């Protein structure tokens, strides 16, 4: 009743009438050519490339919550292609190239910022490992530079060079690496996919598969059943749960990764820095917050929140690397659900069930992969063949022994 005297309110709010919704918040239809489960970066990018490159527009992206609510909306925004293994480098480099042209492609500014990614090393063995990596990158035509201690000091004079437990020896720098405004990636892909006719359906949780004659022909959702010619999964941390609905068991565990942001500050850290003697990496957002993170909490979790020991571990690493951040304050911490694969590398492949396609296993590094993952998954969905750069991401590589283990940790997902 009282509300009536205040309902005048709405009339004043007409200043920006001409703006349209960035994407259509669609109602689900009865059937599509392709359904993509998961309105994260990868799902939305897949829809964009399906429509743009393969001309397949009768597509729905089904998101159980709001788009971007998963890891694409909670990552530390680092993009780079400084990988080691031949199965990975071309893929991540394709992604890097797509980032470089993203804004023009989407007509949406996702603030791709090639401010440089520096990986520090603190021992001869680590240096040799980075040299091996840098040279592998150069063989693939990817930029990489080796910095000695003096060069690192020049770039980042405030790092602890003089009282460090593990002195900095140098670093591997990829200048083309950097950061991208994470949420805008989801919104930008949603915008262009939607404009090309893709239905973006929020608050639509997939709860089961419709299987006929051993073939997946649709999904059961919180908003009814929807049929589809093909169904692609891009649900990151929920991969095992969704796969289980189709009776599949994956080489994946879900773990929580935390991230942190400080209070806003005037420009302090120009690029991205990764500590080599502890779990800590950092960059500064355009809003001024220091965005940083470290290792996963290390146990299976679907809680989307972590625990205190990892916060301490990360801050210890931070203080060891840059003791000037001691008085700066941590503003917020959060967690995301990582689909940790058994060798630390992703899977983009058909599944043993016809009609069902898998995009998973991104661990904590799948944000940078978003464009290439979308493109490769679209390629797979459209052509039933693996994209040139994603051929190594097979599901059967564990059975055949062709793992892509960048860290050499073996089948222990919490160590990747």
């Amino acid at each position: 009743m009282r509300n009536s005297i205040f309902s005048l309110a709405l009339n004043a709010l007409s200043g920006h009438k001409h703006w349209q919704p960035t994407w259509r918040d669609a109602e689900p239809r009865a059937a599509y050519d392709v359904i993509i489960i998961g309105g994260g970066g990868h799902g939305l990018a897949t829809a964009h490339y399906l429509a743009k490159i393969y001309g397949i527009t009768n597509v729905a992206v089904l998101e159980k919550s709001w788009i971007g609510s998963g890891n694409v909306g909670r990552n530390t925004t680092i993009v780079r292609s400084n990988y080691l293994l031949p199965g990975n480098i071309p893929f991540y480099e394709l992604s890097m190239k797509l980032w470089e042209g993203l804004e023009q492609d989407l007509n949406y500014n996702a603030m791709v910022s090639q401010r440089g990614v520096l990986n520090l090393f603190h021992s001869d063995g680590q240096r040799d490992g980075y040299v091996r990596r840098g040279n592998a990158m150069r063989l693939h035509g990817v930029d990489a530079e080796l910095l000695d201690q003096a060069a690192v000091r020049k770039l980042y004079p405030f790092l602890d060079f003089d009282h460090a437990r593990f002195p900095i020896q140098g670093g591997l720098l990829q200048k083309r690496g950097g950061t991208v405004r994470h949420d805008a990636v989801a919104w930008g892909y949603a915008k262009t996919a939607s404009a090309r006719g893709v239905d973006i359906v929020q608050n639509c949780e997939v709860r089961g598969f419709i299987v006929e004659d051993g073939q997946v022909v649709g999904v059961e959702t919180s908003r009814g059943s929807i049929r589809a010619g093909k169904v692609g999964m891009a649900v990151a941390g929920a991969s095992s749960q969704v796969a289980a609905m189709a009776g599949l068991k994956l080489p994946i565990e879900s773990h929580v990764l935390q991230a942190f942001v400080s209070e806003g500050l005037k420009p302090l850290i120009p690029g991205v820095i990764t500590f080599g003697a502890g779990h800590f990496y950092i960059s500064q957002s355009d809003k001024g917050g220091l965005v940083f993170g470290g290792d996963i909490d290390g146990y299976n979790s679907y809680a989307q929140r972590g625990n205190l020991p990892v916060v301490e571990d990360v801050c210890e690493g931070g203080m060891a690397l840059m003791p000037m951040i001691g008085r700066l304050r941590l503003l917020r911490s959060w967690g995301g659900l990582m689909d940790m694969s058994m060798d630390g590398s992703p899977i983009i492949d058909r599944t043993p069930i016809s009609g069902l396609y898998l995009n998973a296993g991104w661990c904590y590094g799948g944000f940078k992969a978003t464009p290439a993952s979308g493109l490769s998954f679209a390629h797979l969905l459209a052509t039933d063949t693996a994209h040139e750069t994603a051929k190594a991401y097979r599901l059967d590589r564990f059975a055949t022994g062709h793992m892509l283990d960048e860290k050499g940790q073996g089948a222990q997902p919490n160590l990747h």
Partner: protein
Amino acid sequence: MSGRRLASGGLINRAAPVRFAFDGRDFAGFAGDTVASALLANGVGLVGRSFKYHRPRGVFSAGPEEPNALVELRNGTRREPNTKATTAELFAGLVARSQNRWPSLAFDVLAINQLASPIFVAGFYYKTFMWPAVLWEKLYEPLIRRAAGLGKASVETDPDSYEKATAFCDVLVIGSGPAGLMAALTAGRAGARVIVAEEDFPLGGRLLAETYEIDGMPGAAWTAGVEAELRALPNVRIMRRTVVFGVYDGGTYGALERVSDHLAVPPPHQPRQRLWKLVAKRTVLAAGAIERPVVFGGNDRPGVMLASAVRSYANRFGVAAGERIAVFTTGDDGWRTAGDLLAQGVTVAAVIDPRTEVAPAVRALAGGAEVYLGAMVRDAHGAHGLRRIDVVRADGSSVSIAADVLAVSGGWNPTASLATHHGARTEWSDTKLAFLPGKTPPGLAVAGAAAGNFTTAEALADGVRLGNEAAVALGFTATSIAAIRTSDESFAVAPLFHVAAARTKAFVDLQNDVTVKDIALAEREGFRSVEHLKRYTTLGMATDQGKTSNVNGLAIMAELTGRSIPETGSTRSRPPHVPVAIGAFAGLHKGLDFKPTRLPASHGWAVARGAVFVETGQWLRAQWYPQPGETDWLTSVTREVKAVRGGAGICDVSTLGKIALEGPDVGAFLDRVYANMFSTLPVGRARYGLMLREDGIVMDDGTTARLADERFVMSTTTINAGKVMQHLEFCHQVLWPELDLDMVSVTEQWAQFAVAGPSSRQLLQTLFGPGVDLSDAAVPYMAARELQLDSIPARLFRLSFSGELAYEIAVPARFGAALAGALVTAGAGLGVVPYGTEALGVMRVEKGHVAGNELNGTSTAGDLGLGRMLSSKKDFIGRTMAARPGLVDPARPALVGLRPVDRAQRLRAGAHFLARDAKAEAANDAGYMTSVVFSPELGHWIGLGLLANGPQRHGEIIRAYDALRGEDIAVEVVPPVHVDPEGVRLRG
């Protein structure tokens, strides 16, 4: 004192004046003041500039919810940007500066941003700055970055120290308002171990800021009585200046104690802050509530304040926030501000309430002041400080009222965020007009205003009830507490979140400059989920995390979308509840204390000999021992290697992992964990062993010796010692508990030295004396002996990593340093040298032994030329998986040796291999160099590497391509063993 300090009253110590500086001007306040109260007392209304539009801002609140009054506190290396003036305690000599303004607070050039505000709407970044792409990093982004952010950080090392501590209790009480005090008292009287954590410096919560009475006493006096009783209880611990910032699993709460922040510098041996982990069986969350403002035009003007804050300043700090104070309230509570001000003799310009009817007792609080019922404040005016407000009545007519402060109250938001840290959302109550805690974390109950029970009487009753409940749940007997008399409080409030008729810019989030229009725009663009709204507009993302803005923002979104508030929902709150210094989370683990340092027993001895040290995991090991005149490491290392190969050298190898295994089934166990056979190892012998992971990849290597029938000692690499121990215990406890054996690490027990070189036997003979037979027959290659050295138990192994005649000798660690000395003495005539890890590495590469660079977690036994070690006679960890096609592919890169064709050239580890004429591109990548050393024996650089089809390519010339260093040199593929391939020397 001049300015706005009231003649009497407040909890400040008027006998203790405190001088401080703000923006270079000197001021005085009193002990017990915050920076904000002292500034207000001095009539300073303008304290900062806003984030985006650089609008002038003043103190808005009196607590941690402050969005505006952020200052840079202290100077130099202690500079603390974004410090809330409303919680910073005043101390003598305090220095503060305003932020985000240039050149001065009063005249800020970037305030022209306001003129461009029609374009700077929410999300404007996303729609522009795209062409040309190259300009983003060069031009647009630097501009945006410079304009954004608030305070400036020091780039120097924080000079203060931090500590971490853990405390346990039965009942943790968070907050010490009436609810918290009673919870602590009841649980404490019942005998429970209680911790009371209070963020503020005194106990009491709102009682310090209000004038109502409890048991006939002013709130502060009553608080003092309860505090005295709590202090007398040995089982109660009161932690002031301690904010609980996070609720973690297992009853663990993160808390920050500001030990020395109220002092100019920490006292000797005291940290600046202490990070607490409070482990509680039960918790009572009594964190109170934060007042909610109403959004109207110009509501960010300095002088527009929360009504409760105006009361806090008057009652707790003895400060009148203004000279003519108007009150705009949607509920009864705001009227109390008028009443308290009038009682202190401050002019109340008007009381404006949108409700048309107000209870007579409430109405009476306004005394003779002008009252506008059924009316709202539409706009506030005044550049650097409030001058007047426009009030609009229900009939649309308006009136302008002069005022320098407007006290605003739109209801209260319970401080329940801690209760949501496990993920449960809060639930909207239409009766309380507030989000109340929903499902709480295990063991946590919410009391008082934090639960939406806003009156003092309810808070007290909640505290008693929940304090007792917690105690009883833990087996204590409830205590009864006589009813406590309180003044009457009425809590009626009407829903009004923003004034739609506003004509000027109306701010929802004061710190991030999010306006009502921004929310409307977000809605139009489809960002209707509150979480989208937040991310698109940055509503609630500033240092205050939206404590005074979130609810208004979502209420406006609810109106725009025609949904109810519960349908619209609230955003997720996350730890920390208030921002916490990063240094506090690290405690003392920074600089050299980042990780503990492990030192072998001979460390001091090595220091005395001038060794250079290297970190190996947590160990510090001697890397080489420079001699006078040696200026580069290569000279020293080359000398050491030559001395070893020419005579004798000693090297501390104590850091290698050592595991004692005892029991009848050790042999059987080792057969299962090693790829090769161990049950057949005779007593008194050692064998090299290779351990795989279950996925078939090499995990670690080392030698294991059988000292007695049922007694073995295993060695591991330094880096993998812990990992191997864990693996073996898994295999034993989980996979094969039926095997009868025990194991324990003895790494620390034994100091062990390699004694290597052709004269090593002679050296040891001198050491042991003629009574011990060290002949080849008595101690052959791979022998393991337990013997006595000076009646000290010692172990002697005839092992060689260097390829020379060599031994390892171990003694109990207390004798380690002495043994190092004794070895050097014994070898004096033999040219013995101590050698470090570099020389060790040189000799192992010369001998083609694999180490960390080759055992990199992706190599198989076959890759390392050790394929024959995989026994086919037994099962062992990794056997089945090692047979997968991908792991036995003959084209896999495998171990080879490398030499530069031009012997003068240096090799580089990490270089990749290319066929001689191949183009430098990925398709031709044939492997990489794993280890390189300068071989004194051969007089040139040599390397080990993993090369595709390597073993078939001995003699081939290929290229080592190191694009990073701009090198591309021809190398010859050779067998991995560069020196003494027949192994003549080691059999000595």
